[in-house]
């Protein structure tokens, strides 16, 4: 591991000042991904700003009934919080389906947003080609072993997927990311936070280099109580998603869908909001035919590679299953 200076900060302004003008400095939260990447030689910061003592760990309801989750709240605390379990069950389920209890006790909400892909070619510098790790070096995955890779929104430069479960639920719920920078606070809509790879796969997010995530806000969505997270993976537990679905339905009279939220994990460079599926669902009767049509619409532009073509049909079936589960919630 490369050497670095370590410092600890007590408030957000100190944290922002500490990284300003130092592109090789990084914030250190739970460390579960960053320290691992430093051990691998993928991340090589020369300064770490420990933000674990920042007072941003609370989860609270705001006057407009939205819920604010502090960026330093640990994944386990968010998953177990009564407000989250009752109002946004898919978020709680997504968190509990990720990593292990030990890692969830360490990992923060802000860090979860910032975690990097588990593409083998990115994670191991022994592979020479990775445009994300080393811009311009090529993509080892496109013609390599690409079983876990993207089927939507990818580019010729990068077919990596975003690894988070939590972020899939946040995408479905239209979360707002609150960040503090040198010029004060600003808000980033969740759909604009993570990026598609395009020609700059080295950039995972639109967060500025001297910006700090301080909270994630969940807008009040009454029908989110009827939401569900479905994760399909190679093991029964403790594995990244091959495909996952966060889904919520607002059902009116005659079983008509008045509003739908669907987001997919494991399929793209960012948590994938399924706009085409939502459009197909809205106004229709909640039944398997409707769900299948929505899944077909969402996956119509999908493109697969040698080892991941199974993901297209898997994603369709996962959408149908997740929506069926939500509809059955009564």
């Amino acid at each position: 591991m490369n050497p670095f200076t370590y410092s600890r900060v007590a408030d957000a302004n100190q944290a922002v000042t500490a990284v300003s003008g130092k592109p090789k400095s990084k914030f250190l939260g739970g460390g579960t991904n960053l320290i691992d990447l430093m051990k691998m030689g993928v991340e090589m910061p020369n300064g770490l700003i420990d933000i674990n003592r920042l007072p941003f760990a609370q989860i609270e309801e705001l006057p407009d009934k939205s819920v604010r989750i502090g960026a330093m709240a640990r994944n386990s605390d968010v998953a177990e919080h009564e407000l989250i379990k009752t109002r946004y069950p898919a978020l709680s389920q997504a968190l509990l389906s990720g990593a292990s209890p030990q890692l969830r006790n360490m990992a923060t909400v802000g860090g979860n947003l910032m975690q990097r892909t588990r593409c083998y070619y990115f994670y191991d510098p022994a592979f020479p080609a990775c445009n994300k790790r080393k811009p311009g070096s090529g993509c080892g995955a496109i013609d390599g072993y690409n079983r876990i890779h993207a089927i939507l929104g990818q580019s010729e430069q990068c077919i990596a997927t975003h690894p988070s479960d939590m972020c899939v639920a946040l995408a479905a719920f239209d979360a707002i990311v609150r960040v503090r920078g040198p010029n004060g606070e600003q808000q980033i809509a969740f759909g604009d936070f993570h990026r598609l790879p395009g020609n700059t796969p080295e950039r995972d997010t639109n967060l500025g280099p001297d910006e700090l995530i301080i909270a994630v806000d969940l807008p009040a969505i009454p029908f989110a109580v009827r939401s569900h997270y479905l994760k399909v993976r190679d093991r029964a537990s403790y594995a990244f998603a091959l495909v996952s679905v966060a889904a919520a339905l607002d059902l009116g009279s005659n079983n008509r869908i008045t509003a739908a939220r669907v987001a997919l994990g494991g399929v793209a460079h960012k948590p994938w909001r399924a706009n085409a599926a939502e459009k197909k669902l809205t106004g229709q009767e909640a039944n398997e035919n409707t769900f299948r049509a929505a899944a077909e619409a969402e996956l119509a532009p999908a493109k697969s590679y040698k080892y991941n073509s199974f993901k297209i049909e898997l994603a369709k079936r996962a959408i149908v299953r997740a929506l069926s589960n939500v509809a059955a919630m009564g």
Partner: protein
Amino acid sequence: MASESEEPAASGSSEPNEPAIVSHLATRRKFIKQVAGTSAALAIGPHLVGSASLDPVTSTTTPAGTSDLVKVNLKINGESHELDVDPRMTLLDALRERLQLTGSKKGCDHGQCGACTVLVNGRRINSCLTFALMHEGDEIITVEGLASGDELHPMQAAFIEHDGFQCGFCTPGQICSAVALLHEGHANTDDEIREWMSGNLCRCGAYPNILAAIKQAKTKGRA
């Protein structure tokens, strides 16, 4: 439980004519530590020599203009330890290499196996994925701190009674994890215990016995 044996290293078992290099070393553990220490020093030496001087930042714990080592006070099993550590030192390495608390094991060193599980402020974490410097003032409990004197923690006793291990390498992590699990309240069914213990791998496959041990500790013992 898997205590570290300090028995003298076996000598002359296969090659009686070989110089008995290890025979004058007191123990196998000490020998391994010396070798590991040497290679670690070689590995980090050049970096330390070449690293830039410390960059003073407000509220930093790094003493500006001094060496690369930083002071940290770790409270482990109720006892305070003041150490000078390289910022890169993980909590696991501080426990094992500096404080001789070798119960916590380095399995994968990447947060995947759970052999390094310890309790920090009552919560289980992977000590391999956290720097020692991040734990100033935290209450850290390792497997060495679970027993009361000679009286085993009920979870330790249950693991022995149910043969919840074969080689024993994952056991300290399994036990720390299981102790935390009972506090978390997610040990209500067999499936729930399996799910919530999934961060602790056992290559010997002692899972059925680990499950039995946890169930017994839940009904019989303090957690």
